[in-house]
């Protein structure tokens, strides 16, 4: 399959509209089970606090997966993603009551050869950047 978005239709600076993703404790328990990452900082508040964290925090990979979905939904084909990397700059704190809200947006930062583009991603939770240097290289149609 090929991406739905056409290379010719995007320019450097093309923005991908922001989307919001809710995260609650149940998401983290499901993610722990599915991924095999059972580190208790992601589900046991007393443990998270004992090791100096403010509360339970989301798996970095859960946040990375949400930003990945943001890219694959835009591109139209998950297989169009050829490179994807992030730095986890701040933890996403997920309180028992109310959970967390992740806001993700993107911008085409560079057009490469072979119909590839670099998408720079911004992810925020509680007014903090939770990902930095977050970039996906996507092969467009």
């Amino acid at each position: 399959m090929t991406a739905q978005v056409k290379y010719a239709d995007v320019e450097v600076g093309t923005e991908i509209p922001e989307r919001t993703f809710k995260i609650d404790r149940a998401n983290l328990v499901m993610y722990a089970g599915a991924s095999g990452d059972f580190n208790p900082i992601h589900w046991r508040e007393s443990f998270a606090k004992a090791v100096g964290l403010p509360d339970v925090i989301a798996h970095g990979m859960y946040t990375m997966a949400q930003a990945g979905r943001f890219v694959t939904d835009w591109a139209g084909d998950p297989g169009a993603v050829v490179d994807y990397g992030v730095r986890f700059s701040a933890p996403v704190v997920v309180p028992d009551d109310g959970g967390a809200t992740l806001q993700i947006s993107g911008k085409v930062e560079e057009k490469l050869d072979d119909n590839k583009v670099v998408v720079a991603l911004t992810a925020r939770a509680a007014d903090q950047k939770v990902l930095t240097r977050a970039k996906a290289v996507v092969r467009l149609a």
Partner: protein
Amino acid sequence: MAINRDFIGRTFPPTEPYEVSRVKIREFADAIGDPNPLYRDAEAAKAAGYPDVIAPPTFPIVVSLGNPALADPELGINFSMVVHGEQRFAYTRPMRAGDVVTCTSTITEIKSIGNNEKLTVETDIKTVEGELICKTYNTLVERGA
């Protein structure tokens, strides 16, 4: 406690083969809340040109967990203080149901950043036939006391 620098540059033997299943991909897609049919419906995946359902871009982390590179007690890492620092995947193609893969990992970097320790592992995820599916770059941070 410092992580053992003797491990810098060490490459570990390939892991036991891991068979990627439709059920595991669907479970992972459900867990990340992504309803994309290419992760669940083999017919949809075939219609899109794939031999079977494909996995989300971050799925290879499942295969690379339990990395033997991190299992040696001599490494001296305190996992209760570890947070994920950076992660990158460079894909040759999407992973898909039916792939039988192994991971070969190398510890490429261990260094101090302030009170923290940083460790980077590079992993080649290949099919048992030898096809490279992706390279992963995983950086862990052990927070200092």
